[in-house]
């Protein structure tokens, strides 16, 4: 079929008429109808259920689903049930982006809960910023981000390191740091913050080394650690590399009582994967550990195990954040005048909740979460013994590596102050 000028004109006119008819619907003033049709509130749940990261992300997915089912069992939100639309990010940032677009545009959800890696969060960020939608991100991450479309409920560097580094220097009495990590943005930003804190507290760092993400040959690196003269190892190693690292460490004759590994990523799930005997005596800093000795946390662990039908399942920091952030969202929806992403975002500011780790609160400025830093030493049963904890939750500072302090915030409700960042 050849396209004549006449048919082209006619078709264009028809398209214009169609678009004209369609637009008022999109610009519906009563947006509640779009986001909460049929007595249900739809939300997106976006984690990798397949691929290399599915091992960890499946547990975040499960915790999110568990929170949703608990809220529904208790009567839902504003009398409406939450209906979750789960998508699979397939451990691939590009798939994450496509699925996020699908959830936001086609399913018209007012909020999506998702992502474990920074790479997948960065991949979906444009979708949420362009459509002014809302994303809840449960993982500890490197900071250096200020978006009014993301609520961050995991720890940022100051909540994992501000307590950890001074504690290592003062309580453990270790002063020479060997910093080791996987070669990508999170470990490198963590190293940046660590170095500032080490120097401020009178320690020194003698090496800052990286290995490819997913690399599991640690022979040379551990030998280098041995010959470096350091007295503590600060590990930002991520993923299954963690397992090979701790195993090689023990097999080269290093022990955690003389030269401890102090880690920011090694959680219950990695300890279970490596075999607890390799980590006994090493330390990790997180706001949440399965071993937190409160009735609320014990009940949470029991409920999670029943939910996934695995009596040995472990809980960890990102999993716990995946759980409590749904409750913060619920409170925000109840407070909001209407169910739109913008209204929920405004209502979530300052929301507080008694999570399994303790009291949490969303910072009204940067939409990050007040969390309680804790340090644990790993025991032979694969659980952490909490040996140091802040008395109360501490303020999240995503730009701490660039000079952000509680009295001089870089990221506020108005967005990122780029002038402060440059100076």
């Amino acid at each position, binding site marked *: 079929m050849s396209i004549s000028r006449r048919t082209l004109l006619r078709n264009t006119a028809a398209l214009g008429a169609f678009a004209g008819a369609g637009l008022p619907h999109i610009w519906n003033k009563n947006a509640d109808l779009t986001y909460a049709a049929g007595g249900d509130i739809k939300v997106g749940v976006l984690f990798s259920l*397949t691929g290399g990261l599915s*091992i960890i992300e499946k547990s975040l997915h499960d915790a999110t689903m568990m929170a949703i089912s608990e809220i529904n069992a208790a009567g839902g939100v504003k009398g409406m049930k939450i209906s979750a639309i789960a998508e699979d990010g397939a451990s691939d940032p590009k798939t994450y982006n496509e699925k996020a677009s699908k959830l936001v545009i086609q399913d018209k959800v007012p909020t999506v809960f998702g992502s474990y890696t920074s790479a997948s969060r960065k991949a979906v960020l444009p979708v949420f910023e362009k459509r002014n939608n809302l994303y809840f991100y449960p993982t500890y991450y490197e900071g250096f981000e200020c978006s009014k479309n993301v609520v961050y409920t995991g720890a940022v560097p100051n909540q994992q390191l501000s307590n950890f580094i001074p504690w290592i220097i003062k309580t453990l009495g270790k002063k020479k740091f060997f910093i080791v990590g996987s070669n990508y943005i999170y470990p490198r930003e963590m190293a940046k913050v660590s170095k500032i804190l080490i120097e401020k507290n009178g320690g020194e760092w003698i090496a800052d080394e990286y290995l*490819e993400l997913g*690399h599991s*040959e640690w022979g*040379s690196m551990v030998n280098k650690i041995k010959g470096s003269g350091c007295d503590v190892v600060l590990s930002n190693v991520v993923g299954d590399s963690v397992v090979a690292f701790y195993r090689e460490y023990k*097999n080269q004759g290093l022990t955690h009582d003389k030269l401890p590994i102090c880690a920011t990523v090694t959680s219950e799930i990695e300890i279970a994967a490596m*075999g607890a*005997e390799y980590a006994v005596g090493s330390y990790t800093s997180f706001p949440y550990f399965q071993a937190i000795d409160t009735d609320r946390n014990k009940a949470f662990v029991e409920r999670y195990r029943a939910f996934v039908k695995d009596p040995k399942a472990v809980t960890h920091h990102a999993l716990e954040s995946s759980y409590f952030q749904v409750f913060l969202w619920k409170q925000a929806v109840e407070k909001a005048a209407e169910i739109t992403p913008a209204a929920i975002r405004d209502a979530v500011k300052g929301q507080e909740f008694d999570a399994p780790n303790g009291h949490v609160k969303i910072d009204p400025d940067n939409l990050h979460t007040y969390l309680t830093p804790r340090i644990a030493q790993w025991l032979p049963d694969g659980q952490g013994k909490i040996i140091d904890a802040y008395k109360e939750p501490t303020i999240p500072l995503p730009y701490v590596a660039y000079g952000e302090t509680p009295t001089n915030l870089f990221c506020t409700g108005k967005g990122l102050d780029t002038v402060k960042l440059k100076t």
Partner: protein
Amino acid sequence: MLEVLFIGLSLGSILLLVALGLAITYGAMGVINMAHGEMVMVGAYVTVLSGIWLGTNIFVAIPLAFIVTALLGLLIERVVVRKLYGRLLDTLLATWGIAILIQQAVRLEFGLSFLGIHVQGLGPGLQNVSVPSFLQGTFSILGADINRYRTFIILVTAILALMTWFIIYRTAIGMQVRAIIRNPKMAAACGIDVSRVNALTFAFGSGLAGVAGVMMSGFKTVFPDMGTSMVVDGFLVVVMGGVGSLLGSVLSAGILGEINGLVAAATNDILARAVVFGVVIAIIVLRPKGLFALKGR
């Protein structure tokens, strides 16, 4: 310095362990077996499962993994590879497909997970194998602390390499294999049952990969994707050593391992990996047939 050299040797032995089976299937049969890494993975899972369900240790797993992966290799040869001899690219694609099938079979617990049945030790999660305590830690030689488990891997690799050499160069069936490497048609004309020998060779190569998997399970994480990266390293060794040459594979594994270890000690691991790839490229440019090429007629 002794420790650095030892780590180089250990890296070389791990490379050889994976490459040994490939040297046989690729070298002798001209099959690019992309499923070789998955054989390693299956071997590792045999170790995990036998530990959980039979309560046995890593030593029992060695013969067990050899048998399981050899039978699996035999099956693959009979069903797929046999029909594709002489079609290099087709074997590459077919075995890659098989690799994906095996990976997913383990991840989905052979389909049982659809029925809600969970087999402990299978599935997408990370698994681990506990190593007997006398293989953990170090012992001292000349003031250097030597890693026991790595020493164990070097010993096992040496035994497997010697065994392979003995079978290929000192037995009747080995002679037939070598005849097929040189010229399959001529070998068939001399009365060698080429298809039977090929099937056995493929099974043996797969069995070696299974033993490699047992060794890997002791110090790496066991998960369904673990074999994928190993097969690349294996091909590097075989191509650099010269296709069909056992001695070539042994030497190239040793050289690459030591280069990796020394460069990593002097600079860092990321650069070491780049240097290794650079050396392999230089060698196949300068000597396209590898270090030890067979002189064909």
